[in-house]
């Protein structure tokens, strides 16, 4: 008689799509519901992965679908095959997706902007949900990210642009708004970047006026980008 452990040994590869429902049933016995119903669980597994990644990266999905109708499905399947979920927190499953896209981009398999787009979506998510107790000082790489992108990903996301993000270098700050604790983005001026660097201990160049620095700092503080 098949034990519970034998059941799990057989069902996992079926759920992963590594064996068929017929092979599963050959190992542990037939389902009274029929093979087609058993194999429906593999369909559900694939569907779930698409839903999860699509929820975490809706704009990356939109861009990929715009590039080709099959691209998103192919990316999700390959990501799931190489990075199967192992943690109860579904967001942990999605965390490596930007790096995965980066590897594909460097291999010339996907447009480079997809990695940037996914990175932007991930940090917007992360900024919004980082526990307060983890935030120290400026909250760099927790509730405050500074990124330089080769594409205008914030406009693509905000304006729901079609196609792919437009090429063009842009520096972007993603920060947590103190009002509603959600992510906001800002295209900083060079002086504003100097203010952030100064808060990290790097003195700004002498050529910047104290007035310009003070005005920039006041703006960043008022927005909640940096603490008072």
């Amino acid at each position, binding site marked *: 008689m098949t034990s*519970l452990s034998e059941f799990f040994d057989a069902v996992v590869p079926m759920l992963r799509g590594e064996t068929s429902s017929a092979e599963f049933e050959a190992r542990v*016995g037939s*389902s009274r519901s029929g093979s087609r119903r058993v194999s429906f*669980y593999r369909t559900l597994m694939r569907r779930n992965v698409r839903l999860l990644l699509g929820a975490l990266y809706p704009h990356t999905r939109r861009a990929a679908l715009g590039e080709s109708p099959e691209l998103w499905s192919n990316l999700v399947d390959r990501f799931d095959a190489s990075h199967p*979920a192992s943690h109860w*927190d579904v967001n942990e*499953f999605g965390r490596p997706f930007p790096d995965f896209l980066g590897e594909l981009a460097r291999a010339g398999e996907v447009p480079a902007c997809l990695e940037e787009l996914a990175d932007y979506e991930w940090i917007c998510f992360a900024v*919004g949900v980082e*526990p307060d107790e983890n935030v120290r000082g400026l909250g760099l790489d927790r509730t405050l990210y500074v990124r330089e992108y080769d594409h205008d990903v914030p406009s693509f996301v905000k304006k729901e642009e079609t196609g792919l993000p437009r090429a063009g270098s842009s520096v972007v700050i993603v920060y947590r708004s103190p009002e509603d604790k959600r992510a906001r983005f800002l295209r900083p001026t060079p002086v504003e970047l100097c203010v952030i660097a100064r808060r990290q201990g790097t003195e700004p160049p002498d050529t910047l006026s104290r007035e310009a620095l003070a005005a920039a700092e006041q703006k960043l503080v008022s927005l909640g980008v940096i603490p008072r």
Partner: protein
Amino acid sequence: MTERSVAGVGIGLRRELADQLFATERSVDWLEIIPENFLTQGGWRRATLERALERWPVVSHGVCLSVGGPEPLDTDYLEKLRRLLDRLGTPFFSDHACYERAHGLFFNDLLPLPFTQEAALWAARRAREVAERVERPLVLENITYYAEMPTSVLSEGEFLRLLLEESGCGLLLDVNNVYVNAVNHGRAPRDVLFELPLDRVRQIHLAGHEREDDILLDNHGSAVCDEVWALYREVLERVGPKPTLIEWDTNIPPLDRVLDEADRARDILHDVCSGARAGFDPLENRDVAL
């Protein structure tokens, strides 16, 4: 410490509905959260939860416990859950009679166990350990299953009764799941319903489903169907007033539509239960000191 009792009809605290929820003056008796959204996340999520707790009792309905799974229980997860439940202060917590993890993989779905004595006893042992670690009663939900797993020898009702009796857990009766399972497996919904251990019902879920080819899918994406409303009424007649949740998690409509469903459930709850017990108010919420 004060626990907040849960009665009447609640809805899920969902991101899409939060702003409307805080603005509404319509009746909402309590809220349900998916705890996994709050165990490691702060920021706006935590702020939303704290704001909700100022106004409503909030109960926890997990989706990642894997009570029937083959791997050791995740003690880190359970400790985080215990701390969250302390904050919520509700008298029980729930998850599902299923598995989600196996062999190092997490499947992000509620997967059916074979309906065997071995599986029921295995899950019961783990459920007892969970309740001890989390220091609260655990309530398990009957899931939808689209295929009966090979090696099953018990009915779903026999399986759940054994699991719940051996573990001491309550039943979170999802009436829509009863209906979906009955239709998908060619049975009469009332037969499936009354095989379940209804004496252990601690909470009720109502939801919508959709048809996909020859299968009803439990997608929580539409209104409760008439057949499920009728079953709900029968359940209340059998088990008395139980806190009831309207689940609407996909294709989420404006809040008022969800609250219309909650009002309908509340009307039935009142209709069936108010006269059944003298002096009983099925919608009463009380603070009960531990």
